């Protein structure tokens, strides 16, 4: 550890300490009578208004990994990395259409997780188990990637080794255990203020030092023109346009199926709160677009990523850019923004995964007579285990492998769309068909991912999520996002399976919900005020 980065380290550590204290104090914030049930610990009392929801969901969806990886992708591949922008534009109208119905039905019936909904809608604990396991498996690497984000910042400060990360996560685990969803909700305020500050300064200050935006883009273009790879550049070429659009759509569909985004939405107070947020959240997309452009600024500034063991870690381009451009004290603030940006989503994700385990595995299969207090305790414990698992992923596995897992996570979480997403609109599918479709989609998705090589990284398998259509016998160079192809397989099998099950007169599960449940709002008689734990 060198003294060059001392100022940065001090500011980073001070801000980190501040949010840790906030995390512990959060249990007193909007204090409930008891923290001994999942509605309080896991959903913050389901009482968050517009502002808190805005910060919470924003903190949830725009993670440290996003801040580090999206510009790294733009740095490496150019326009293709900008998919994050259409992706986050498309996601809000989709949420508007779908999750708002999930909010209503969940408040009427006291659902805590998407798998709770599936169980009641299709009368199938097995399908709910499939949804819950998919959610947990997809979330774990996501949490691990938050650590990759912190590590990139630490590397830029000259701190190597894993100890700091273990300490950071131990503190995070402790206050999540104590305060539940209230901790990330409170910390999200600090995180977002810092992020906005840093990004506004970055987009005004850095280009002016580099000669203006036009020069930034021209420098990027010059770099990509020199490289042999055909698909990079400041614009898309003929082969990756379809992939760009399908990746944006697929990621948007996947995003709100992730248990942690559902957690953020369910914690809000009313339908209007969600709707208002859907029109206000795109402010983050704007910031994300600007963050993506940091990748081009890094090119123009001639940033060289930090390499370890001969392998350049492109995730460090943004931290290095900040380090080169900003005065030390502001670099410290910027790094703290990224670091804290990792804590908020990591906390929400571990809570969401823990809720899934408790509601749909523990209560369903292990202890059906668990009390509310036992549920809350199990969730707290599982949230610890999930974090230990995430740290173990980083310590024991190559970080590269976590990125692969994240890639897989996005594809597999999409396979819950027919039961969770479409289930909100139609009860047409048979539970047998849905289970078959889920299995087929998972298998198809994993098989396709396995087949994709990445010559640039010298990998034969799991090299990316762009599937060549020529592999399917089509005469084109176009590529498509694997998740959507797998989803198509899933839907086809689910539909066919439904017809077969009907023809064979297999018993279908009972639907515990009614049409009116999907539009119920705060104040309606069937929406219980706080005694939500009684049902389900």
């Amino acid at each position, binding site marked *: 550890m060198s003294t060059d980065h001392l100022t940065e380290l001090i500011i980073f550590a001070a801000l980190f300490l501040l949010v840790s204290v906030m995390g512990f104090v959060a249990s007193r914030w909007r204090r409930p009578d008891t923290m001994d049930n999942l509605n309080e610990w896991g959903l913050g009392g389901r009482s968050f208004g517009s502002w808190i929801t805005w910060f919470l969901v924003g903190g949830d969806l725009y993670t440290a990994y996003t801040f580090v990886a999206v510009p790294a992708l733009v740095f490496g591949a150019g326009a293709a990395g*900008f998919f994050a922008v259409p992706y986050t534009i*498309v996601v809000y109208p989709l949420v508007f259409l779908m999750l708002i119905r999930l909010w209503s039905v969940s408040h009427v019936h006291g659902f805590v997780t998407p798998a709770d909904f599936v169980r009641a809608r299709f009368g199938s604990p097995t399908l709910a188990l499939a949804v819950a396991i998919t959610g947990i498996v997809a979330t774990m690497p996501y949490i691990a990637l938050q650590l990759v984000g912190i590590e990139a910042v630490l590397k830029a400060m000259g701190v190597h080794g894993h100890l700091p990360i273990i300490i950071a996560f131990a503190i995070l685990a402790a206050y999540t255990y104590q305060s539940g969803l209230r901790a990330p909700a409170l910390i999200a305020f600090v995180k977002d203020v810092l992020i906005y500050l840093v990004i506004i300064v970055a987009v005004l200050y850095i280009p002016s030092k580099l000669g203006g935006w036009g020069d930034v*883009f021209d420098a990027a273009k010059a770099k990509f023109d020199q490289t042999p790879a055909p698909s990079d550049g400041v614009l898309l070429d003929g082969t990756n346009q379809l992939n760009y659009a399908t990746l944006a759509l697929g990621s948007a569909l996947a995003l709100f199926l992730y248990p942690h985004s559902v957690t953020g939405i369910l914690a809000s107070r009313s339908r209007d709160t969600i*709707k208002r947020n859907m*029109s206000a959240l795109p402010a983050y997309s704007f910031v994300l677009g600007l963050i993506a452009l940091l990748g081009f600024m890094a090119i123009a500034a001639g940033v060289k990523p930090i390499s370890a063991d001969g392998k350049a870690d492109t995730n460090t381009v943004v931290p290095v850019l900040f380090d080169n451009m900003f005065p030390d004290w502001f670099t410290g603030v910027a790094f703290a923004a990224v670091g804290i940006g990792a804590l908020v989503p990591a906390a929400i994700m571990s809570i969401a995964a823990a809720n899934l385990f408790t509601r749909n595995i523990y209560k369903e299969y292990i202890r059906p007579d668990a009390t509310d207090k036992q549920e809350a305790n199990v969730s707290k414990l599982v949230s610890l285990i999930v974090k230990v698992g995430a740290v173990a992923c980083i310590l024991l596995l190559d970080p590269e492998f976590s990125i692969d897992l994240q890639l897989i996570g996005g594809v597999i979480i999409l396979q819950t769309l027919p039961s969770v997403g479409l289930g909100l609109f139609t009860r047409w599918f048979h539970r047998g068909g849905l289970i078959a479709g889920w299995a087929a989609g998972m298998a198809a998705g994993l098989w396709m991912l396995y087949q994709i090589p990445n010559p640039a990284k010298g990998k034969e398998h799991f090299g990316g999520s762009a599937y060549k259509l020529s592999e399917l016998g089509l005469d084109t160079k176009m590529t498509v996002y694997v998740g959507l192809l797998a989803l198509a397989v899933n839907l086809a099998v689910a539909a066919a399976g439904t017809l077969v099950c009907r023809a064979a007169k297999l018993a279908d599960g009972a639907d515990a919900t009614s049409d009116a449940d999907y539009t119920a709002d705060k104040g309606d008689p069937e929406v219980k005020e706080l005694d939500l734990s009684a049902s389900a």
Partner: protein
Amino acid sequence: MLLPAIIIPLLTFLYNRDEPRLFGFPAFYWMQLAFILLGVACTTIVYRMTRRGD
């Protein structure tokens, strides 16, 4: 009403070009940032139309 906000940002042929530049931004970038405003407009209108009042 929400459909344009979902479909338009996915039509890459609309914006996959360099010119015209705006403040030095190629069209590819400023147009997509502009679509954010389109998304906000659509969701806000729908929100206003369906609001029940807190």
